[in-house]
């Protein structure tokens, strides 16, 4: 099943499988995932901890080899590329991590950290480098004169995330994978960074894969949302439609789990019970069945395929809600 986002998507992942070997056992981190991202689109990717979101992001960047499947970036299959050709492609794809402080080298000055991708990609003229660093720091709302000479520990979590965003944008990439960029930030700084990402997207003409475990955050910035559970895609669809009419029981439960700042709305009692099973031995059939209120015998025997449930909306469920 191809989830066509546009005739000429920037990224197209086909039947991607990624596994880890742990103590003689296999962790099924990403199992047969196919997804497309259109040029200029933001695709949100949500799911609980350990469901394979970061692994998918790393596999797109070829930081983790795939067992099988293709990653087509702008028409080129990254999984078969090597050496200089791969490096040139990868320059167009950047990654922003969840823990902004940990992802900055504590002993290097901010100016050098942000300039590093330029050095690696062979921008030799120091004047040109410092001009680009200056521009990108201003773009993310930092005063270059005040920050370039300082070390990461002198900055708050929110400011470190601005620095990480600057580092990701300095090469003027086409595609940015944001792996939980705001999960470590508190409410007010989170809003600042989400707004900044939106501004940067417009300014640099970016396409984004936005990973998070909080559906409310994902909805705020995404055109479409993909929901992942234990290595598989459960549902994909336009953000508003997915929220208004979730088809997969897991999507519905994720929506119910969002804390609503209104004391008249009592927290739902329908949140999924327990924790996801181990990805070393995922349940047969539908992987969500051990926590699903609608599960029946068929769910244990047959893997549900993604099927269209509404225009642009696809769900992998034998008994969808819509």
């Amino acid at each position: 099943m191809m989830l066509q986002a546009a005739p000429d998507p920037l990224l197209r992942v086909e039947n991607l499988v990624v596994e880890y070997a742990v103590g003689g056992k296999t962790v099924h981190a990403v199992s047969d995932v196919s997804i497309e991202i259109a040029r200029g689109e933001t695709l949100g990717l949500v799911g609980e901890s350990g469901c394979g979101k970061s692994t998918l992001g790393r596999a797109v960047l070829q930081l983790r080899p795939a067992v099988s499947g293709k990653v087509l970036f702008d028409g080129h299959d990254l999984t078969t590329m090597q050496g200089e050709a791969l490096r040139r492609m990868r320059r167009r794809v950047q990654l922003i991590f969840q823990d902004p402080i940990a992802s900055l080298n504590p002993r290097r000055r901010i100016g050098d950290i942000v300039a590093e991708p330029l050095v690696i990609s062979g921008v030799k003229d120091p004047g040109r480098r410092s001009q680009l660093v200056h521009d990108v720091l201003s773009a993310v709302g930092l005063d270059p004169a005040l920050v370039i000479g300082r070390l990461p520990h002198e900055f708050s979590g929110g400011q470190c995330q601005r620095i990480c965003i600057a580092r990701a944008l300095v090469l003027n990439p086409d595609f940015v994978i944001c792996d939980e960029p705001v999960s470590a930030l508190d409410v007010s700084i989170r809003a600042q960074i989400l707004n900044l990402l939106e501004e940067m997207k417009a300014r640099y003409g970016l396409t984004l894969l936005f990973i998070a475990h909080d559906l409310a955050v994902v909805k705020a910035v995404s055109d479409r949302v993909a929901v992942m559970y234990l290595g598989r895609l459960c549902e994909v669809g336009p953000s508003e439609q997915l929220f208004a009419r979730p088809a997969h029981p897991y999507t519905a439960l994720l929506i119910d789990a969002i804390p609503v700042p209104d004391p008249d709305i009592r927290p739902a009692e329908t949140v999924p019970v327990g924790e996801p099973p181990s990805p070393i031995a995922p349940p047969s059939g539908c992987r969500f069945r051990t926590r699903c209120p609608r599960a029946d015998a068929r769910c244990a025997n047959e893997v549900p395929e993604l099927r269209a449930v509404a225009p642009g909306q696809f769900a992998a469920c034998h008994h969808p809600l819509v």
Partner: protein
Amino acid sequence: MSSGVLLSVEDVVVDLPTPRGNLRAVDHVDLAVGAGRTLGIVGESGCGKTMLSRAILQLLPRKARPSGRVMFDGQDLLRLPAEKLRRLRGRSLAVVFQDPMTSLNPVLTIGTQLIETIREHLELDLAEARQRGVDLLAAVGIPAPEQRLEQYPHQLSGGMRQRVAIAIALSCEPKLLIADEPTTALDVTIQAQILDLLAREQRRRHMAMIIITHDLGVVAGRTDEVAVMYAGRVVERAPTSALFKQMRMPYTEALLAALPKLDAAPHTPLPAISGRPPDPTRPLKGCSFAPRCRYAAGRCNTEKPSLSRAETPGHLYACFHPIETGAGAVA
């Protein structure tokens, strides 16, 4: 609520000496929690929530200089001898931290830690303590509790570890449980389960609880009263329903507005609070929120507003230009 005040925090100040000068982490805070009630403390990172809870628990950094009174069950915790405090902390006063590893020992099994805590405070023999441990693990939603007793903390997921930390905190039937951002590090689904678990155990045990968080969504459906902190001070305090019906303090309103709304269309810019809280070693002369406040005017920059009463009973706020009642300023 006046009947049966269990904890009252009176004019508590916590000063921390730092190389940059004195850092006032908690600045003249007054709070009260009734027996069996739940108080939410909300505010951005660094506003003093943890230092306040540590002042209540008397678990402050060694260099901290606290003052004021923390009356718990008729005794002033700030002036209690160390030995008495230690006994009180395991028994009547329990805590759950953001990072469960703060309270778990990585080299001991779950069972050893749980059973030791139980036996330290309750007169039970080993078999009874073990049974109680198993019951507690089951109560906090841990499957196969007997087997879990043999496991080490690193063998559990973050959510499971937090459940174990809660089981240990509940093991001696405390009168007050302080949960400092118990779910900030967890998934939304696990967060909802842990908050439900805390609420259920609280009702069942008629225990008082303080939930500390930076997310107003977390306190909305789950507390009786909310205190909003900013730059070490309580800047608004009210019964939860009154607060959400009518926020008076611009900071509270701004915190709520900054949350992504489920009913807003994607790409709607969020009304973020610009800038950051002031440097706590450089206190401002006027209202600490003034540099970020869209209502700031007149004496906001020169005078500190004190916590005063609103028309609604139990509602207090510290602001010269409070949001008008009926304005319903938040969307």
